[in-house]
Structures are given as C-alpha cells and as structure tokens.
C-alpha cells in the first residue's frame, strides 16, 4: 500500500492503495466516482475512458503510480452542470440506449475534440474505434460529436 495524491476533476484526493491499482478501481472503489465504467479491463472497449492531461486514456490499464500530478478528468468533472457541449449534444440527439458505454464514449470524444476541434467523419470513426457500444448507437454518437464540434 502507498499513499497517492491525485488531481481529479480539479480537486486533490488522497488514496492509500496498492501502487498497481488501475485508476479505474481507484475511482470506482475508493473515490465513489462510478461514472467511469468497467467493461473489459484490457483496454479493448473504452468504457473506462478518462482524460489524463486532456488526453483520452483507458483507466483500466493506467496504474495509479503512473499518474503523478497529472490532471485527471472523469465524466463527473467534464463540466460543472452537465452542460459540456458533448453532454448537451448527447441529450439533444438522445444517444443512449442502455447507457453503460456512454460516459466512456463522451470522454473519448472529449479527448478527440481537444486534439481536433472539427473532425471529419473518418477522423471520428478512427478516434472512436476503441469504444464499443454493444447497443449499437454509433450513428447517433457520430451525429452528437459533430453537433458538439459545430457548437
């Protein structure tokens, strides 16, 4: 066990965990930030996506001891009032079905828009390739990302 001071959603959080603990479980089990989802545990589904210094990152393979003082953003911290352009577009397009993958989709899209504010369809498809939606909401996700990019 070791103590880590983490910068999450603009706040300092202290956790005492095994250094090999993935950020996914630090967030979910130790900090009650359960918006970041568990889907595969091996970086294949994107459900666990967070931003690390603005970069979309799979938290299931990001060990807590690798984070240092980097800025972590989770779905809970993407905006204060749930009104990030992506969140608004997601509501407007009524994207979710079961909804389980959607926080990961939104966080991955946020990483994409940070790097590329107006992505083409192909760029969206490429960037979102690692995020599975088992319910098949891909066409709506694309629409929502484009709407957010244009807003």
């Amino acid at each position, binding site marked *: *066990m070791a103590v880590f001071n983490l910068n999450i959603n603009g706040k300092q959080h202290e956790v005492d*965990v*095994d250094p*090999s*603990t*993935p950020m996914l*479980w630090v967030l*979910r*089990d*130790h900090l*009650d*930030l*359960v*918006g*970041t*989802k*568990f*889907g*595969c*545990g*091996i970086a*294949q*589904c994107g*459900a666990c996506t967070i931003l690390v210094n603005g970069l979309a990152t799979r938290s299931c393979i990001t060990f807590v001891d690798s984070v240092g003082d980097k800025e972590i953003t*989770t*779905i*809970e911290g*993407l905006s204060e009032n*749930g009104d990030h352009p992506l*969140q608004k577009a*997601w*509501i407007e397009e*009524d*994207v*979710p*079905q*079961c*909804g*389980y*993958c*959607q*926080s990961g989709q939104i966080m991955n899209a946020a990483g994409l828009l940070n790097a590329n504010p107006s992505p083409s*369809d192909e760029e*969206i*498809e*490429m960037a*979102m*390739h*690692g*995020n*599975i*939606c*088992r*319910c*098949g*909401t*891909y*066409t*709506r*996700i694309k629409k929502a990302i484009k709407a957010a990019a244009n807003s």
Partner: protein
Amino acid sequence: MTTVKTKLDRRSFIRSSALAGGGLLLTFSWLAPACTTDSPKQLTMPDEWYELNGFLKIGNNGAVTIMSPNPEIGQNVKTSMPMIVADELDIDWKFVMVEQAPLNTDIFTRQLAGGSQSIRQGWNGLRMAGATARRMLREAAAHEWKVPVDEITTEAGVLYHTGSGKEAGYGEMASAAAELTVPEEVELKDIKDFTIIGTSRKNVDGPKIVTGKPLFGLDYKAEGMVIAMIEHPPAFGMKLKSFDATEAKAMPGIIDVFAIKTYNDDYEWQWSDVTSFTELVAVVGKSTWEVMNAKLMLNVEWEPIADDNAQGVPVGKENTTDHYKKMEEAAANSSRERRRDGNPEEAFKNAAKVIERTYTAPFQAHNPMEPMNFFADVKDDFAQLAGPTQTPEFMENTVAARLGLPLEKVDVQMTRMGGGFGRRLYGHFMVEAAVISQKVKAPVKLIYSREDDMSYGIYRPAYHALYRAALDADNNLIGFHVRMGGIPDSPLHANRFPAGSVDNYLAESFSVDTNISTGAFRAPGSNFNAVAEQSFLDEVAEAAGKDPIQFRLDLLKRAQENPVGSNNDYDAARYAGVLEQVREKSGWDTNSEGKSRGVAAYFCHNSYVANVVDIANKDGEPVIEKVYASVDCGIVVNPDAAVNMTEGSIVDGIGHAMYSGLTFSEGQPEQNNFDMYRLIRHGEAPKEIEVHFVENNIDPTGLGEPPYPPVMGALANALYKANGERYYHQPFVKNSIG
C-alpha cells in the same frame, strides 16, 4: 371511447421499499425527472404525495411520480411506459418524475424484460392506471364543486368545469382523490386524443447517464459492503474437485475464500436457472482490484463430470468442429416433421429446378457492456438484493428457495441494466451473490470480470439449416422444404412465412444435446431464421428470374387471398405492408441503378420489419452506405426512441452476422474478452440509417427484437450484389481477430 374494468384496489398501494426509503442506500436515487430539456429545477418536490394507485402518486403542487414497472435494459421502457400512464392521466410531461418500481407482483404484472413484450403486455394496464387516477381526480373536483362528474374536463394537469368557470390543478384535488374508492370502470382516451403517446420524449435517465451518476448494478454501494468474485470451471463438462486457498487468503484485502453451491440438492430447477456450473469458488475482499489479484492466486483442481445429470445433460468436453458434424448427422438422421402441406416429395420430383442450400451459425455470447453483477445483503430473516436482472420475479423464487426464506422476506430492486440481450434472464449470479452474503454475513457486491462473463455464458445456440425450393418450368415456387436444428434446440417456426404461401411445404426440426449452457439471445431463433431464410429466398427469386421484393409480395398475396393451411401465424397484409413501404422509401424501382442492394423482411415478436441495405465498394472493401428500415409495430409510443432502438438493432444485427462467434475447444470457450471476440465498432456501422414506421391504430407490439433479425439477411443479399459471393456461414468475416 373504450371502457375498461379496473383491476386496481387498495392493495395496489405502493409498498414502500426498505431499500428506497432506508439508510442502506448511499448514492442511488431512483427518481428521474421526465423532462430533460427544460431545466429540471422547474420541478419542485411537493410537501405531500398522495398515492392514487400503485402506478402513480400526485404531489400537492401538481408534480406526478409515475412508477416504471419493468426492468430497464436499454429498450427505454423507463420513459415509454410512464408516457402511457401520463397520457391517460392527462398531465403535462414536464410535471412528471419517473421512478423505477420495486418488484411487486401484487400491483404490477409481468415485471420482466424479454420477448419484446413490455409495452405490448403493459399497454392496457398502464392506460388504465392513468385513466383511473384521472377519473378519481374528476370525482374529487365534482364533489368539491357540487357539479356532475361528467361535466368535469381535464387538460394538462388541470381540472375544469366550464359551467361555473371553476378550475383546479391536480395537486389541489389529489388529497381528496386519494380518499375515494377506486372506480370499477373507467373510460380510456380515443387514440386521436393522445397528447403524449406518439410524441418523442427524451430518455428520462439521459442527464444521469451523460454525467456519470450511479445508475447501474455495478455502481451500487452500501454501508459495509464487500466485493466478491467467483472462479468457475474452465470448461463445460467440468466441476470443482478441490482447492487450496492458502495463497489467495494471504493476499492483501482478502476476507475469505470458500466454495459455494448455487442450488440445494433437492431444488427443482426452473427455466431461468442455470445448471452448468453449480459449484464455484468465491473470493471475498475489500476492493475489486484486491479480489481480482487474489483470484489469480487460487489453486483449484477441476475434474470432468462423470454422469449425465437428471436433466439429461450429457458428459464430455465438446469441440466446435464436432458440433457442426453432429448437426449435419442429426439433420440427416433424426429430423422430425413439424408441418406438411400438400405433397412436397411429389413437387420436388416434378420440379424443373431444385435449389438446395445449407446455412450455419455459431454460438454467440451476449456480452452486454456491463458484466454480470448483483448486490445482496442476506440476514437471518431477510434478504435484500439489487442489481441488473431481466427476470426479478422468477429469480426471487430461486433466491428464496436457496436461502430457505419465505418469498415476502426477499426484496429485489431493479437497477438500470447495462444491456442484457437475454443474458440477464438467467440470474444465477443473484443466487451466487445471496449465498456469498449469507456466508460472510455482510452486504456483498458480486462482480464478474469480462472473462468470467464471456466464459460462463448462456450462449445463443449454434444452428444449422437446410433449405430446398422447387420451381416449375414457369418458375413458380411449387415446393418448399426447410430442415432446421440446433444445439441444443431447433429455431424452427414452422408456421411462419413462407408457410401458407406454397402449396407443397415441409418443415422439419432436429436437435443435438450439449452441456454448454444456452438460452434466449435477442430474437431467439429468429436471429438465425431470418438470415438463412431471407438469403435463401433471394437465391430462389434470382433462379426464378424475379425481382426479390416482387417475388416475396407475390407469395404474400397468395398467403393473404388463398392461404395454404390454417395455422399461419403472421398477417400477410402487414408483412407485405413493410415490404411495400421499404420499396418505396428506398426507391427500389427507381434508384437502384449502380447500387449493390439487398432486401429482407421478417416477422417476429408480433412486429414486422423490412430492410434494404446499400453497399459501396471502397478500396476493395465493402462499406455499408445506407440501411432503410420499414417497421410495423402498431402504435409507436415514443417515435424517436423507437428510431433509436431500430438503428441499434440494425447495427447489432450487422455486427453479429459479420463478426461475432464463439468457438469451443475441449469444452472451453476459445474467446473470453474483446481482444478475441469481435464486436462491431464505430467505423463498421452503416453510414446512414433511415427508419420509417407504418402508421396504424393497432395496439403497440414489440420493438426490442423485431428489427434485429432481418437486416442480416438484407446484408447477405447486398454483399452478394457487391462481390458476387453468397454467405452461408456466420460470421461472414472469418478469423476476424487474431
């Protein structure tokens, strides 16, 4: 105006649930404001709630809470079921809050997510609940204003009496209405007077989903809760022999390691129970990561199961290669006749042309994005469970029997489900969680890893079908023969189209036993039938030199005007209706030049769907440019959500036909995570999907499953146009990962 007998009485009052009200819940809130576009802050909480019946309560300020009785699995019933109540109540949707109902069979019927039946079977009860409450509010106002009840009208949550000019909000009359006797009969609205049904309303959980609020079983947390995982046999046909937990127990954060039995020895299994792995090793600890690590340190010995069990499940470790051989053998040797019209043998003997094709499909894992999990807190005299289940009622029975508690001492709460597709009909994980909680005497959340989830599946069966068609010299279809089976059961629906449209028809089925657990998977049986049959009909139409839509329409015309046999379980006119609509909307007759398009139509779960798929060739790779869908599911309750469901089914159908399959080696699934098991991803989805609904006033039928099967057939037929190849074996893309 329709008048219906009410079935609500005082017993129908909401049972206040220990979980919903108590201190156990830390983070969960079951309430969701219905209106997501206006600021939800508009909806203030009332000082007092009045229960008018089990489905709804009205606040003194006019706010309304409507219970959503059925499990929410992504089919959006948590929005559409309350919409039905709200419409009959005649309330403005923005005053509505939705609450997931607890399992309560005194009030609610069929609290189950399966068979695309929630709306179809809920329709009358939901309307009645809203109409009953509206009637009671009108009676309360009539009494207060001393005027006849028939003179009281309502609009958007306000009661009016035109003669006296009086008016009052529902909130003002709610307390008086709650005192009244429930009327024995109520009037339902005319369909033309619906104000909410038929209008698009956004997902009531949308704001919580996009902000990451706790909603799902996996998000559930309670005071003092510990985490558990299970280790199950690595292969079907094996069981626990012994285990050494010394190392695992010594791992940090581990509380206990022990073996559990899912069922008591004398327990009589019901359909939603699973019997493949009934003895497991449970690891319990303080946090998920610690438990995952300890699980790796388990030393477990497994052994082959020696005897067939009482249910006739065979012993042995099975292999995919044998599976296909066994199905071929069974097809040839042990097929049983299910329907016969005319003289099919004679028709085939006299045929000018006979077309014969074989189709196969593999086992598939459901893979909902949220892995199996459940919360259980079992005390000596009471058990509380919460989590994702499609069959809370059935599983409550199993849990009660296993724990030796009376049914009323077991409480099941339904969380939102991260998908299910049939997987969560089989709730062995609920029993496992309960047994573990009982043993460790603490609230437990049981979590499956993705590997656990995929290798302890209740898989879509593997299927095999032989189709034969006989054409006469004028290219008329004079004989049709289908022989269809699977492991462990046949997907055949002997009385579905084209039965009823061909004079000489033979349908046969066969089955092969297995010890691999299988069960319902989105549109059971139909998810294979539609692909095989609709690809086959495409080839038959081609051999007959006919347009594939016209060919089907001609058969349906026959089935409508002069049907063969009497048990045809589809409505030929509605079937033809979706084909005609998709023909028109896709410009099939006018706009097909230069396009690689395929068509298919299918009927299942009481609804009709037709698709046209357009494929373009991009650098030698087929790209799905556009999919058209025409859907007849009766009255559409929530149109945009229905479009979403149809789009999702189309993506899902394409994905499973193209990429997904599970293979076995020595009883062991060869894929156990998404690096090995391929699911459709963003770039592989159609670039565009256009959905149309046939407008009619037929009571609504299902939509969770019907749009899933036919697109696979339309896809196969479009691929043929694009590259000249027919696709007989799923998945169409071989060795797609590795």
